[in-house]
């Protein structure tokens, strides 16, 4: 009941935006821009003919593979760079140059290297999500409080124990932050990548709906679905913050 009460202002803002949208479309007698109800019926149409699930699962598959690969590379690399000063000094300048390059700028290279299949968007997702995770993990290792490392040194634990029982748990909250950022970027990028030369996915669905008969009801339906899935993915990542070795960071 309390949570419902807390949600009332947010729901009221959403309702106001929908009302404004609806009112504006009716007042301007727009023939192209859809009303919210047209978006609902358009979404239902996509659900009924089964294409919505195909597009959602295609996008999720690409994000899953690209992001999964990025996690497998970024976390060990970030730990290594954080722990070994030589590795940091050697690799950090390169990553700092590559990091600000927009994933969109990589599209021509991705098509050149991987063609127009699934590999290109997967590569784009990988390249866009790997850097935030490397940076967060590295920063996480660099910012471990010295008092904990000193205590471990005092107790004479092995390097393996130091890493598994001190370094990794101390860094995990930062890793999770990096994963949240990385997944958010990955979801942004997959939609952009699918707008180019692909035949499935939510990005493709949006472009196809516009190109094939100005179906802006489906364009907006696609946009809203992208937003809701993005929110759900972030919710899943937030569940990681409840993990035993992460939640200490968020304790009052």
């Amino acid at each position, binding site marked *: 009941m309390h949570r419902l009460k807390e949600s009332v202002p947010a729901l009221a803002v959403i309702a106001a935006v929908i009302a404004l949208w609806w009112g504006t479309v009716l007042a301007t007698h727009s023939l192209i821009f859809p009303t919210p109800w047209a978006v609902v019926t358009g979404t239902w149409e996509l659900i009924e003919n089964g294409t919505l699930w195909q597009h959602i699962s295609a996008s999720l598959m690409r994000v899953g593979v690209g992001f999964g690969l990025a996690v497998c590379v970024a976390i060990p690399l970030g730990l290594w760079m954080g722990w070994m000063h030589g590795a940091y000094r050697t690799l950090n300048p390169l990553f700092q140059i590559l990091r600000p390059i927009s994933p969109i700028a990589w599209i021509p290279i991705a098509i050149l290297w991987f063609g127009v299949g699934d590999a290109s968007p997967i590569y784009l997702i990988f390249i866009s999500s790997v850097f935030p995770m490397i940076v967060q993990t590295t920063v996480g290792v660099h910012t471990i409080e010295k*008092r*904990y490392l*000193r*205590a*471990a*040194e*005092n*107790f*004479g*634990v*092995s390097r393996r*124990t130091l890493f598994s*029982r*001190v370094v990794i*748990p*101390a860094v*995990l909250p930062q890793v999770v932050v990096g994963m949240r950022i990385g997944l958010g970027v990955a979801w942004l990028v997959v939609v952009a990548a699918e707008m180019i030369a692909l035949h499935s996915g939510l990005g493709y669905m949006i472009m196809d709906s516009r190109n094939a008969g100005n179906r802006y009801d489906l364009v907006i339906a696609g946009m809203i679905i992208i937003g809701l899935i993005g929110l759900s993915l972030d919710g899943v990542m937030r569940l990681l913050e409840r993990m*035993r*070795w992460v939640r*200490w*960071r968020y*304790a*009052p």
Partner: protein
Amino acid sequence: MRPKIEVREVGKGFVSDRGRLEVIRNVSLSVRDGEFVAIVGPSGCGKTTLLNLIAGFIAPDTGTIFIDGAPHSKPSLRGILISQQGSVFPWLTVRENLMFGLNGHAAGSTLADRYAEIVGLTGFEDSYPHELSGGMLKRAELARALVVKPEILYMDEPFSALDALMSLRMRNELLRILAKERHTVMLVTHDVEEAIHLADRILVLSSRPTRIQAAFDVRFAHPRRLSSAAAQDLRVAILRELGVDHDDPA
């Protein structure tokens, strides 16, 4: 008799933006086995640096530190440091923290629970540090140090973050434990009363570059009455060494 700790002509400086800062100059001292030595001195004089040197966390520029007659340069289980900030791992439970230094000891869990009991943390073995009060956290830190049976306890203003009542309670707790378990203790504190309450000997450091300015034996038996005339006289003498007049309102 050979001292437990011997500091021989130790010096230490640090490089700062304003050049080299000499913190400790030619300090020599020795601590007997089982003795409780408190180090007091003006703020920033290098008390913590001296303790870190003795514990092996930093290396001296000059001089040598001996433990049981052997040169000592690295921290080890023989001497555990308890710092003001505390270093109980927040991602481990109390029991796991206590077992941390036992390195897979077969009876680790039993030992951990026993020391949790000794410091009055029974019932909180499975709690996380963020679920404990400041005083309980200090107890956990003390238990984690004691469970590995160190010969020396290095204590750097261990109770200064606690309120006065909790600090007094922790001091009594420490004395109770030390009456049962033999440890050599080096305590750094800015609290002269705390030093008189706990220590067998009090060393007063000068301002930087620090050296030992005075040493006082504390000959009263435990439990000590800090309000006694002798304790008050000692307090005044120590404060005078620190440059504070005893009736100074500050």
